[in-house]
């Protein structure tokens, strides 16, 4: 509760500072809209915003599920054989530093203009940090835990599910966190750079349109939604998973 109060206080202070800067009149309203006009933009655009948000969440969901499955597959494969491990770690070294948005031109060439290109960018952005975390997670399983598991007669899937997964879960969780953040960034960035095809577009396309219509309060409203979803997913989903798993199992200290 106190945590919540301190966060609320921070947001309130930020809002007050924002309004004070605006009231000095140093910046035109076109660049620095008031809190009131942002709130009214949020309310007026609620139907459009909800639609755009759902669209964004849907393609990010599809992208993330694909990326997680691919990352799991790659991780298992790299434990299956030395050649796979080398190939995947080389691929990681090449691809991980490449920002997802940088492959947008290639994505458009391969998949055309539309949702599939954006989906490709999302999967690409999320995949490498996911593999990185998963791989580190599995590699950092203490050998003695594995031995204990084997001594108890666990093999194959049982060993993976009951020993390896809990032991590596902190890494998996932080991989998911990074993957989610990267996917979210990629979807907004891709739509902001090249717009969207037709009526299909998420929050990035919303920001793009508002920018071209010079509706600055609308741009801030869209940004606010993006931030709120980020906070919501962190506190409702990831914190929940954390409390129910690694905190309960006491695999992490704090």
């Amino acid at each position, binding site marked *: 509760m*106190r945590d919540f109060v301190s966060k609320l*206080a*921070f947001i309130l*202070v930020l809002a007050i500072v924002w309004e004070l800067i605006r009231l000095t009149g140093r910046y*035109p309203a*076109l660049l620095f809209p008031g809190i009131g006009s942002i709130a009214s933009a949020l309310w007026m655009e609620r139907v459009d915003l909800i639609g755009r948000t759902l669209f964004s969440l849907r393609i990010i969901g599809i992208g993330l599920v694909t990326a997680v499955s691919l990352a799991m597959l790659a991780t298992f494969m790299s434990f299956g054989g030395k050649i796979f491990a080398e190939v995947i770690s080389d691929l990681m070294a090449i691809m991980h530093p490449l920002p997802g948005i940088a492959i947008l031109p290639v994505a458009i060439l391969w998949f*055309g203009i*539309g949702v599939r290109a954006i989906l490709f960018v999302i999967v690409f952005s999320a995949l490498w940090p996911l593999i990185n975390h998963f791989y580190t997670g599995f590699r950092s399983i203490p050998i003695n835990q594995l031995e204990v598991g084997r001594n108890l007669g666990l093999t194959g899937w049982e060993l993976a599910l009951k020993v390896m997964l809990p032991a590596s879960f902190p890494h998996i969780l932080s991989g998911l966190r990074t993957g989610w953040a990267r996917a979210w960034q990629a979807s907004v960035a891709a739509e902001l750079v090249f717009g969207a*095809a037709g009526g299909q577009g998420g929050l990035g396309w919303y920001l793009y349109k508002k920018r071209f219509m*010079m509706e600055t309060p609308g741009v801030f409203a869209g940004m606010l939604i993006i931030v709120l979803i980020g906070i919501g997913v962190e506190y409702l989903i990831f914190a929940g998973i954390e409390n129910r798993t690694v905190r309960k199992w006491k695999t992490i200290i704090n």
Partner: protein
Amino acid sequence: MFCIKRQRVVALLLLAVLVAASFISGCGQKTVQENQTANDDEQLMTIRVAKQFGLVYAPLMVAEKIDFFSKYGLKVEWLTLGSGGAVREAMASNELDAAFMGIPPYLIGWDKGLPAKIAAGYCVIPVSLVTYDENINTLEDFKAEHKIALPSPGSIQHILLSMALEKQLGDPNALDDNLVALPHPDGAQAMLAKKDVVAHFTTPPYLFEELEQPGYKVVLDGFDAFGQDFNFNVALVTESYHDSNPLGYAAFVQGLNDAMNWVNENKEETAKLLAPEFQIDEEKLLKYLTAEGVNYTTAPYGLMGFADFMQKAGYISKVPGSLSEIAWENILAQVGKREGGPCTLETIQWSK
């Protein structure tokens, strides 16, 4: 426990104050810098102008190459910005003194309080919707799967399409879900590859290049959509520059006139000068520069014609009460104010 929380709140407060302070001090530094540049260039006035690419900017490119401004004591600082949206934002934040944009994007800015007015008309140039699909001959033939490329929402191409849609189908937003926002070169590339899009609302040289291909045709002509001629772009000068630097303003307008006139008088030399810039051969460029409908002029055409439609369709919230709300005095003097009913120049500011 409580102690820690309080420390955190204090830390957050400090952070907020820091952010605010950096905003305000950043602003202070800027004014100091501005004063310095003003002192440095006391002999020569300067104006910061956004540069863009396209056949319509030929006079501007010539003006930069031959320098039509220094004889009036003006130095032009050319800036290149990514898109029309960025140009407008730069004007609003006083990073630019002058820029060129279509009348609809300007009206959107004007409606939101962009402190700039029209200093000159800038060319009358054909702008058309092109397709290669043999089944598409009118706007009614577009189906849900037919994608139309145009530069951005709120661009002159978008508004012309909406105007035609309202006239022909009764719904200005009928094809909104078909639109793809693509810069002109990317749109042209998609059209020539016959990939992703079936139609492209564009301007020369892209328009001419597409129409040179067999089977590519015009579905909608911009002048038909508007009802008569209109300036493809207008030259805008910010209020602060116009008010604080009247000599610089006059020099900019006159230099623009000189450049425009030079292009009209010397189209062959213009083609020679700009062919490397456009990366096409001289003859082709000359053909484009002399194509039917191309008119390099600073006269105002159709300045008021987009506003009524844009307000009705919800793109802007208000309509300029008179030309003086959107244009500087040299334009107002050109158009004039005939007693007892409008003159020709006044009537051509409206759409039909």
